C-alpha cells in the first residue's frame, strides 16, 4: 500500500526535521514547505501530478504567509477536505480559535512528544 502523504508547513528547520523524523518513523511520507506560500506551491505541484495529500500540518507564525491565511487559502482549493492540523504555542488561545474558524481540523501545542503528534494525526487519518 502507498504510504500516506503528509505536508508539513513550518519556517523552522528544527520543527520540520523533528516532524519528519517522527512521521517517517511512523511510516508516513513527508513533504516540507517553509511557509504558507511555499505550502500552496507544493499543493499546486501535487495537483498537477494528480497526486494527493492525506493531511497537512502547519505552523501559524511564519514569514511571507502565516498559517491562518494558508488554511483559508487551502479551503479555496480542491484540497479543501484535507484535514489541517495547526501548530500553536501554549498561550495562543486566540490563534487557535482563528485557525479553527479558518477551517483547521485540529491543533497541536508545541512542544509536543512524538506520541502526542501521532495520537492527534490518528484522529484524522488511519
Amino acid at each position, binding site marked *: 500500500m502507498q504510504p500516506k502523504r503528509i505536508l508539513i508547513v513550518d519556517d523552522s528547520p528544527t520543527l520540520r526535521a523533528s516532524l519528519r523524523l517522527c512521521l517517517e518513523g511512523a511510516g508516513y511520507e513527508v513533504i516540507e514547505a517553509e511557509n504558507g506560500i511555499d505550502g500552496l506551491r507544493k499543493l499546486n505541484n501535487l495537483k498537477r501530478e494528480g497526486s494527493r495529500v492525506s493531511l497537512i500540518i502547519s505552523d501559524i507564525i511564519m514569514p511571507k504567509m502565516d498559517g491562518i491565511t494558508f488554511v483559508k487559502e487551502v479551503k479555496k482549493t480542491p484540497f479543501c477536505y484535507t484535514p489541517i492540523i495547526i501548530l500553536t504555542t501554549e498561550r495562543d488561545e486566540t490563534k487557535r480559535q482563528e485557525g*479553527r474558524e479558518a477551517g483547521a*481540523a485540529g491543533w497541536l501545542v508545541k512542544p509536543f512528544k512524538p506520541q502526542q503528534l501521532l495520537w492527534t494525526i490518528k484522529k484524522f487519518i488511519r
Partner: protein
Amino acid sequence: MKKSELLDTYFAEAEELLNTIENQLLALESNPEASEPIQEMFRSAHSLKSASAMMGFMYTSKFSHSLEEVFDRLRKGELPVTKNLISLLLNSVDFLRMMHTNITSGKPECKAEEISQMQAKLKRFLSEVSEEGPTKKFFIEPERPSDSFFEISMEFRDDIFNKGQDPLMLLLELDELGEIIKVVSDISRLPDFDNIDMYKLYISWRLVLKTREPLSKIEDVFIFTRDENDIEIKDITRQFRDGVNLKDADKFIGELLLEQGIISEEDIQSVIKEQKKTGKVLVEKGIVDKSEVEKIAEYQKKARLVHRRSTIRIDLEKVDKVVGLVEEMAIALMQIGEITSEMEPSVKRRFEIMLKGLYKICHQLEEQVMKMRMFPLEGTFYRLQRQIRDLAYEQKKQIRVVISGEDTELDKEVIEIISDPLKHLVRNAVDHGIELPSERERLGKPRGGTIWLKGYQREGRIYIEIKDDGRGIDKEAVLKKAIEQGIVKSDSTLSDEEVYELMFHPLISTAKHVTSVSGRGVGLDVVKHNITKAGGRIKVLSEVGRGTTFVIELPLTLAIIEGTIIRANGEVFTIPMNFIVEFFKPLPHHIRTIEEHGELVNVRGEFLPLIRLNKVFMLGNGSPEPKLVAILKGNKKFGVVVDEVLGEQRVLIKSLKENLFNPKGIAGATVLGDGSVSLVIDVTGLEELAFG
C-alpha cells in the same frame, strides 16, 4: 534522518536565529523608529522558543519566551527603545549562545541561578501576566479498577467534512479505548437518494462504550469536535449491569425498538391503533361478560394505586450507602463510650444510660436497613423446583417437591453466591439420590420420590436444607475410596460425620465410580468451597436406603461479620469469628518444621500447617517463637501465629476495591472502635495464598 542530524539542524537554525536577532538589534539601535527589525526579532525568538522546546532544552525555551515577550511589547509600542534595553537584549543573545556552547560540550544548558539572574534583569520589561510563563496542567486520573459504561451520543454538523474531520475516525478511536457494545445509527435525516449531497453528513450515532479508561480519555477523543458539534457523554455505569441498562426495564418494547432505530415513531402509532386490549377481545368472543371485565379493571386500578402507594423501589447502592453510614455511627458511638471513664461519676451514670438507649436505636436501625437488602428464598426455591421437574422428566423419574420456609429472607449477595451450589446439590439428588420408580417399587418404597427444600432462620444464621428420600450414601464405599486414595489410613476409625466430610474432598467428590456405588455426584468440593467463601458451612446427613440431607448454614449478610480482632507482627487484623476453631498456646516442642510441609503445629496430636501472616503478606520479620496460635478452619484446619487477641466486635467490611484492589487473602478493611483501621482476613483466600 537520524537524531544526531536533527540536533545539527537545530544548532544551525539556532545560530542563524541568534545572528538575526543580534543584527536586527544593531539595526534597531541605529534606527529606533524602524518596525521591520522588531517584527523579525519577534519571529526569530518565537521560532527559537518552539525549536528548543521540541529539542527539550527547557531553559533556552523559557528564556527565548521572555525575549519573545519583550519583542512583542516593543512591537505593540508598549516599551520604548532605549540603549539600555538594547544592551540587555544583546547580553541575552550572548547568554543563549553560552547555553548552546554548554550543550554542545555535553554540559547542562546553564545553572538555575544563572537563568534566574538573567530573567530578573529582563523582568522589568515584561508585562505582569507573562511572569508565570507557560504552565502545564497535569491531571492524571487513575485507571478505573473495573469497567465503566458510557453512553455517547454524537450529532455532528452536516458540513463536518469541510473541516477535514471524519466521524469514522472517532468511532475507531473509541473502539480502541474499550469495547463498543451497542451502536445505534440514526438515519432519519438521510434524504432521498437523488437529494444526497455526498459531502454532507446526515447520520448521527448513539453508542455504549465499555471501558476502563477515565472520562477524560473519552473526552479527549472529541477534543477537536466537541465545541462545534453536539456530543454528549454520559457515565451510565451505575445503571448499567450485566449488559443491560436498568432504565430499560420499565420501557415498553415499542420504545426500545424505537431507540434502537429498528422502527420509527409512525410505525408505533400505526400499530397501537390496531391493538386491542385482552379484556375487549374476551368480551367480543363472548367468553366473559362486559360487566365482569369492567369490575376487574376497576379492581386492577385500585390494586395498582395501593401498590404504588405502599412500595418504592430503591437502588441497591443507595441502601448500601445507608448501611455504611449506620455502621459508622455505631463506631462513633463506641468511641463516645470510651470517654465516659474520664467523667464525673454522677454525670457518667446518666450519660451511660442515654448512650445505651442510643446503642439500641442504632442497632435496630442497622437491622432494619439490613432487611432492605434481604430477599426471600422464594424465587430461588421455585427455580430449583422447576429444575427438578425438568430433570425428573428427562430421567423418567417421579419426583414431588415440597417447599417450606420460602419466605425466609437473606442477603441478595448471599443468594447469588449459593445459587449455583444449590443447583448442583439438587441435580445430585435427582441424578443419584432418587431411584427409578421400578427400583423404588422393588425396595418397597413409593414409586415417586420426594425432595424437600426448606429454609429457616435460627440465631442470626440462615439454614437451607435439601433432603431426598433416595438411596442415601454408602459410607463403606466412600471410606474405601478414601483409603485407596491415601486420604485416610486403612486402620483409622472414623465417625459417621467424618466419613460424610470426606465426600467434600476433591479426590473423592470428583471420583466418578464412587458416584455409581455411593449414589453421590461430582463436584461437592466446589459446592463446599463456594459456601465457605460466603462464610457458611455445609453438613451432610444420610442413611442408606432412606435418603440424604444437606444442611447449609449461612450468614444473614456478607457485609457485617462477627470479628475477632488480633494482633500479628504488630499489625491489627480482624478474623471472621465463624472460621475460628480455638486459640492454642503452643509450647516450643509443639512447633516443628518438616521439609516438605513447612511449619506444623501439634494441637493435641493433630498436626496442622502453621501460617505466619508476615510471610504470607510480606510484612517483615516476626518473632521466632509463636506464643499463641489461632486455629482456623476454612476448607481445612490450619494455624495462624498471632501475638495477642484484642477483642471481639461486629464489623462492617468495606471493600478496598474502590481505593486499591482487594489483595488475595484480604476480604476488606474495617474501622475499629478506636477509629483505627484493620484489615479483615479472607480465610479461604488466605488458605489458597498459603497452600496454593
